[in-house]
């Protein structure tokens, strides 16, 4: 294993917050253009819902937000400690710092 934790001074691509902003702006730009294309491109309609203005973008956005909110809410009653299913010996091993990941 060569997972050394080192505080290297090397600057990587996304260490510069400016670059993260650039990526985000590119995403916003793409979204805007795609939304705009809805008015330009004449698509075949298979279903009446597709006539709704901006159906796919809105469905994608709302769907994902609902997905994440419901999943977060599910944590309240489905989440358990990491060693929930482990046997007593395995729990002791985890307590003493042993990591069960291997090659």
């Amino acid at each position: 294993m060569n997972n050394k934790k080192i505080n290297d001074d090397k600057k990587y691509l996304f260490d510069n917050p400016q670059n993260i902003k650039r990526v985000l702006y590119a995403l916003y730009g793409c979204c805007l253009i795609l939304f705009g294309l809805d008015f330009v491109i004449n698509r075949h309609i298979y279903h009446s819902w597709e006539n709704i203005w901006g159906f796919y973008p809105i469905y994608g956005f709302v769907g994902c937000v609902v997905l994440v909110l419901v999943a977060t809410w599910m944590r309240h009653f489905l989440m358990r400690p990491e060693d929930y299913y482990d046997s007593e010996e395995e729990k002791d091993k985890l307590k003493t710092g042993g990591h069960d990941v291997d090659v």
Partner: protein
Amino acid sequence: MWMFEIPPFVPFFIGAVVILFTRGILRSAIMIAIPVVGAIHLWMVPDGLSFQLSFLDYQLMPYRVDKLSLMFGYVFHIAAFIAIVYSLHIRDTMQQVAAMLYAGSALGAVFAGDLLTLFVFWELLAFTSVFLIWARRTERSYAAGMRYLIIQVLSGVILLAGALFYGAENGSLEFGKIGLEGMAGWLIFIAFGIKCAFPILHNWLTDAYPEATVTGTVFLSAFTTKVAVYALARGYPGTELLVYIGAAMTCFPIFFAVIENDLRRVLAYSLINQVGFMVVGIGIGTALAINGAIAHAFNDVIFKGLLFMSMGAVLHMTGRINGSDLGGLYKTMPKTTVLCIVGAASISAFPLFSGFVSKSMVMSAALENGFDWIWLMLLFASAGVFHHAGIKIPYFAFFAHDSGIRASDPPANMLIAMLIAACLCIGIGVYPSVLYALLPYDTGYNPYDATHVLAQTQLLFFSALAFVWLNLKGMYPPELRSVVLDADWLYRRMFPTVFQNLFSVIHKADNGLRRAFLVRLEKRLDNLAVRHERLSGLLSRNHPVGSMVMWVAVILATYLFLSFFR
């Protein structure tokens, strides 16, 4: 030609024996050569070939070739080749032999022409693959492998029962369209359903796959579920129930995937989600839908393999796989990052990547056949799969917060295997006609029209926007070290607890009853003893002389009395 008569599983089984007795480079060379030779051989095998023999009263067909089985045969060879290249650095005979036998069993199953042969390979799949889980050699993997084996063998036993019923009902064991009529149909359906990870029957997959070895998971993700998809496509095309089961399979795992911490378990959930698309396609049953299901199975083997390989590379190099422990790996693992993103784009069905050209067929078929609500569910699942597999996996492993881990890219063989898979993902995405030519039906479908491309891109980009928005607002659930309960809680916690309590109650009640009975019995005996122990009583030890004289008198009187009757 005699050569064609060799079923495709034979080279893999012979290879497994040969590599048992070889070492080092020779073993590696043989392992690589087998899928290559097998694929060339399969390429020349003519469609429609079959091979029959009689067993007891039944006509068996252990080897049958048609377009459906060929399609799975091709992709299994590709998957075996990629996974073998990926695992070339391994020096573990048990794993290598098990992997060869496992790939061979999958090939045997898809070329089986009768249910009995199918059953044999069905069980072999279970027995060979479990060693890829146990090879991790941890207590957890041992227990997970045991649970996996029990469920898989159960599926096989149900299949055997179904096959016997089927033979009795139809007088033939030929594996063709079965349908849900009669006992046999349902038993076989359930057996296929277990291996296909139908909802509630799905936990063997999310339980065992993340506990397997780095390379073992890559093999596992390719074969078992796809054999089940093949079996459903052959036995139950157009069964409407499958549409609803499949739609459920596409939707429920994505919720679990969003909150799961182990990134390989996230991929296991998304594997169920992808199989759901195939099951919907089989359930619709039109030429376009079946084509879509099979094409998606073909693509899924490759892009899901790629994703499992990239997460395997992370686990191999860092020793960690929890989203909460990882992050910032793009800095030192740039190649793995790019290859993972290709896999993520493919599974999310971005245009020009392989997922797009097959998933859109199933979606179009759902819409054409009036399954409106199902189509909406599939659309939601498409957005969801992008969310958890397309963004979450690369984001939490390679970007997000810097974990401080500075692991380098994995060994060359792992990178090459991932590169081959990535090239196939893009190649099929750009030239889908190559894939379509292999499909069983000719539908003239073209995925690249403005409607599909625009709709899919809009859906995906706005899903990405939702991810960014939720993250910036701090509403995205953080990765937490945790276990998320799923249906496996029933047999891992509830049943054991219920049965333990039940047995302890029964034990106590039983103990109490016995004791109460004993006490009563003792009392009765004491009572009896006391009553009959007095002088000249029934159980008395001492008898007075008087009573003896009395009894002698009685006997003598009896003699006297009897003598009157002479």
